[in-house]
């Protein structure tokens, strides 16, 4: 048991929690927040791996994930705004337009 | 060079039509007409200049070759022999007629229609002269896609279904052919120490023998071509496509597109895989005969005029398959003749069906009847082509079918006899057309439909002259293709 493995475990737990969040919440905002957690977990795993091999690549990947997360959040939240204005709800289950 | 000119006239003409149509519909039609007439005159002028060479049945009258993508051994190689010349002539003739017969029929998106029409024609023309397999495949696709649009946009009520079916069937075949082409390409490359090429003449030297590989590759080509032909279990796209397509579309489908299949078999399957194709010859002939009888049976049952004619095509194309795989000079000459005469006669029947539909707004033969009273000229014209379709001597189809059967009889008397029985069945369905449409009491309540207009006269008269000429003096055609046929028959 070393620290990298510990960190990876933490990352896995975080990822799992994020996933549970995405799966259980109906509110789009909460889902987005959960996605952020998952992304963070993934980044953490990268950094841990990078540290394990003593390479900067892991951190670089984290940077990219960070950038991506930022973009995703901005677009996602813009969509949330639109959805809320149009549908007056945040419930994903009621937003199903592809239904059957 | 003339071949390049011909194809590019059609391609450019098509684009020009599209552009012009934005301004003026009539000008667009004239542009199309001028383009197809130019494309028709080119080979004729060329023929007049080179008559002795062509008539002697020499091989490879024109050979035009430039590099296209040399890295992969792809060349822009066009060549024409007697067979190609005949098919080009048929293509350009029917092209002119197709433009003429859609003169009034197409009222919307005229420009795009003529664009598609001309591009299909260009593709067909290209297929008949491309001597590079990659280029061949290219033209093969060029003729399919515009045809799909012709059916899907200007077709009848059920056009979507028909267009999809047409496309899926032919595309399946096309992809199989592409696979086979690639397989052949690699096998040839390996055999000739890395000399990878798509050139037809180079590939002819590939030795394949009669192994499983050869058989599979051959089947890939064959399936593509017999779908086009069509052979019986693979024919079901044809009635739908034919009956739903606009008149010009049906004309081109029946007159030309089906011929590309037969052409492909004669040009590629037999020379490239002589042994492999000989080993399946009997089965192919059997399927041809099945096609003859089965198509005739189905044709008799139809009530939709265009569908009926479409099934007669299935029946007639059975003769082609029978003749090709008989491997006899006579039968092959008959096949070439059948390609021509079927193109003319069935094309004419489709044009007639189109004219009737324009007047009566129906294709159901139960709602027609007694039309001879109203349209004696059209009745007489229909009689000519109905008789051609049932193989009356004096008209071209007889010569073709006679030679095919005569050639096939030497190989397999039983099959030839069954095929001859198909002639009786052909009489059944052909007479049904006359009886239901032109004989009997006139049924239309409204004013009787008008007889043939001058424009239609031109179309029908040229087809009639062609079919009678082919029936009474077919020798020039036989002379022109004799070189090719002898080569293939020797295999």
């Amino acid at each position, binding site marked *: 048991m070393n620290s990298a493995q510990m960190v990876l475990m933490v990352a896995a737990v975080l990822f799992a929690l994020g*996933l549970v969040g*995405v*799966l259980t919440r109906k509110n789009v905002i909460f*889902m987005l927040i959960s996605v952020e957690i998952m992304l963070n977990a993934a980044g953490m795993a990268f950094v841990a791996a990078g540290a394990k091999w003593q390479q900067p690549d892991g951190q670089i990947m984290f940077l990219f994930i960070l950038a991506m997360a930022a973009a995703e959040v901005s677009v996602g939240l813009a969509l949330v705004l639109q959805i809320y204005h149009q549908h007056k709800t945040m419930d*994903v*289950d009621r*937003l*199903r*337009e*592809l*239904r*059957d | 060079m003339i071949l390049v000119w011909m194809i590019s006239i059609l391609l450019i003409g098509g684009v020009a039509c599209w552009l012009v149509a934005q301004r003026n519909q009539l000008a667009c039609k004239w542009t199309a007409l001028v383009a197809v007439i130019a494309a028709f005159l080119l080979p004729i002028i060329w023929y007049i200049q080179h008559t002795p060479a062509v008539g002697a049945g020499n091989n490879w009258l024109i050979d035009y070759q430039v590099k296209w993508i040399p890295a992969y051994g792809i060349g822009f190689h066009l060549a024409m022999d007697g067979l190609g010349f005949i098919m080009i002539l048929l293509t350009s003739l029917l092209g002119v007629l197709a433009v003429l017969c859609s003169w009034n029929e197409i009222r919307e998106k005229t420009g795009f229609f003529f664009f598609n029409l001309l591009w299909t024609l260009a593709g067909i023309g290209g297929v008949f002269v491309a001597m590079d397999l990659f280029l061949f495949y290219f033209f093969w696709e060029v003729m399919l896609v515009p045809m799909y649009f012709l059916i899907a946009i200007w077709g009848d009520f059920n056009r979507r279904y028909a267009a999809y*079916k047409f496309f899926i069937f032919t595309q399946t075949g096309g992809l199989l052919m592409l696979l086979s082409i690639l397989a052949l390409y690699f096998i040839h490359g390996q055999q000739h120490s890395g000399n990878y090429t798509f050139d037809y003449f180079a590939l002819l030297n590939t030795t394949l023998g009669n192994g499983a590989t050869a058989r599979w590759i051959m089947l890939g080509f064959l399936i593509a071509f017999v779908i086009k032909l069509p052979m*019986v279990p693979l*024919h*079901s796209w044809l*009635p739908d496509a034919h009956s739903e397509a606009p008149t010009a579309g049906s004309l081109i489908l029946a007159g030309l597109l089906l011929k590309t299949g037969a052409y492909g078999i004669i040009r590629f399957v037999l020379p490239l895989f002589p042994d492999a194709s000989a080993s399946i010859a009997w089965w192919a002939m059997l399927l041809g005969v099945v096609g003859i009888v089965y198509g005739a*049976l*189905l044709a*008799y*049952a*139809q009530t939709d005029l265009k569908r009926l004619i479409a099934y007669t095509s299935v029946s007639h194309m059975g003769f082609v398959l029978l003749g090709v795989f008989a491997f006899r*000079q*006579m039968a092959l*000459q008959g096949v070439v003749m059948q390609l021509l005469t079927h193109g003319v006669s069935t094309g004419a029947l489709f044009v007639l069906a189109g004219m009737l539909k324009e007047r009566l707004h129906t294709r159901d033969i139960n709602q027609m009847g*007694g039309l001879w*009273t109203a349209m*004696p000229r059209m009745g*007489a014209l229909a*009689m000519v082509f109905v*008789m051609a379709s049932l193989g*009356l*001597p*004096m008209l071209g189809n*007889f*010569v073709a079918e*006679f*030679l095919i*059967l*005569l050639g096939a*009889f030497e190989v397999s*008397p039983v099959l*030839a006899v069954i095929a*001859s029985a198909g*002639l*009786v069945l052909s*009489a*059944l369905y052909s*007479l*049904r057309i006359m*009886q239901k449409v*032109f*004989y*009997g009491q*006139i049924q239309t309540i409204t004013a009787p439909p008008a007889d043939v207009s001058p424009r239609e006269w031109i179309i029908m008269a040229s087809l009639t002259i062609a079919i009678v000429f082919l029936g*009474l*003096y*077919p*020798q020039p055609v*036989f002379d022109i293709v004799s070189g090719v046929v002898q080569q293939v028959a020797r295999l």
Partner: protein
Amino acid sequence: MNQLLAYIPAFPLLGFILLSLFGRKLTNPVIAIIGAGTVCLAAITTIVLGVSFLQTPPQGGAWQQLLWSWFRVGTLSVDLSLRIDALTLIFIFIITFVGALIHIYSTFFMRHDADYARFFASMNLFVCSMLLLVMADNLVLLYLGWEGVGLCSYLLIGFWYDVPSNCRAANKAFLITRIGDTALLIGLFLLFKELGSLNMGTILQQAPKHFVSGGASITLITILLMVGGMGKSAQLPLQTWLPDAMAGPSPVSALIHAATMVTAGVYLIARMNGLFQLSPVTMAIVAIVGAITLFVAGCSALAQTDIKRILAYSTISQIGYMFLALGVGAWSAAIFHFFTHAFFKALLFLAAGVIIEALHHEHNIFMMGGLRKRMPEVFLTFLAGAAALSALPLVSAGFYSKDAILWYSWSAAGGNPVLWLMALAGAFITALYSTRLMLVVFWGDMRSPVHEQPDKGMIIPLIVLAFFSVTAGFIEWPHNLFHLTLFSDQVQQVLPQTVMKENEPSEWLFQGIAALVTLSGVYLGYVLYYGKSGVRWQQSPGLSATRDFLFSGWKFDQLYNYVFVKPYLFLTRINKGDVIDKLYNAIAQGSMRLNSWFSVSQNGSLRMYIVGVLAGILFIITLQLLL
């Protein structure tokens, strides 16, 4: 003289082209001149040719003219080339001469018809095709003419196309003859396979060397050719189309369905005599078919009430005689019967046409009657024709030809007492129904008023034909009566001489019996029908049933209907939608079904997707863990 050959078919062809292109713009007299004139020109050409043929017979007994090479492929070479020898000459004489008379007649007969031009165009085309048929020097060209006459027959039977039954009759005629044609075509293939040529001269020359007499292949070939002939000549079992074919105008029945086209089968067999002689089996079959046909058709003629159907069945029966003669090897007798039959049967049809028109399109003989006084010219000419048909001794052409056939059917090498008896019975029946026809139509009470008297133009051809019906027989006398054999002298340049049995019985005896039988037939008819109208048939149920059976032509139509037509229609109907197409549609529908199953999962619920992804990941990881 060679160069004239092409003109004979070219004149009618010219007429056809002119009439079909410009027919609608021309006035009736012009059409009549073109239509009848071209055939008359052909007839004149024929007569000129014939005279010079008789005066200076050509080298080898035939003239030939090559028009152009039709097609040459590999070893097959087919030319459009014409050939005239004695046999052909007889046929083209009948075709053009009788044809010209019928054309003249029809210029008057059809004058009220709107489609005057179409009628003459078809008639001209018919004459042209028929001429090509008999003048062809190879079998492919013969087949061209063969199909051409079939086409014209179809066009003319269905001439009044607005009546559905006419169209059905036309279709039936075309289809049934087409069956025979196809057999003929297969025969041609077989011949080509065996001999490598389709030129008649070559075939006849090489056949004896190539085939073993009585061998399987020659028998097959000849049987196929015979079936072809049977289709065109309406012999059993392909005879059912001819009675229905009477739906066409009367001149058509006279020209096509009595004088010329239906004898094409006779021509074919006579022309291919070299082949048929090599196969005794086929010869016997031809004779038997002929004998049965003449009897069956004769019986049917007895029961008919439609004047034209009586004549139609009688035509079938008379062609049966020709087949019988061919079968027993009496070649020249068959051709001679064709020769006389053409005159008297054309005459009978034309006269029937006059009567029918005069009585407002009344076809039923029991609605006629008493016409002897009202239409004396028609009566006299009809009498001449009927006499020839029933072969009244000495005074009619029919006697000479039919008597020869009767005689040969016993005494020729292929002859047989049974055949003779059948032929004799046929002769009796013929006499009976001819008498019945005469008596019912011309004697008794007048049941329909005569609506108009025929034109002179229609009577003249009748008189000419009547003259020939009486005198045409005089060019060939039975050997024992008077040795004059103008006809067989000519014919036997082409056809082999009839081989007789040894120790043949006396010909006198046979002539006596034949004459007696004919006269007794006439007498029986007189007894049965004179002064009464044939109501007596209905009185006995047995007789009535027989009459119905005969009336329907021995129920052949019904038989075919059940054996061929119904199953065919059933087959086509059930498969109208194309089974194979269904298969593809099933594939398409299967994938659509699959699609709809999958699209349930495509429901837009985000969480479902994620669960799907999760399940996939779980599955993969579990898999890795377990393996």
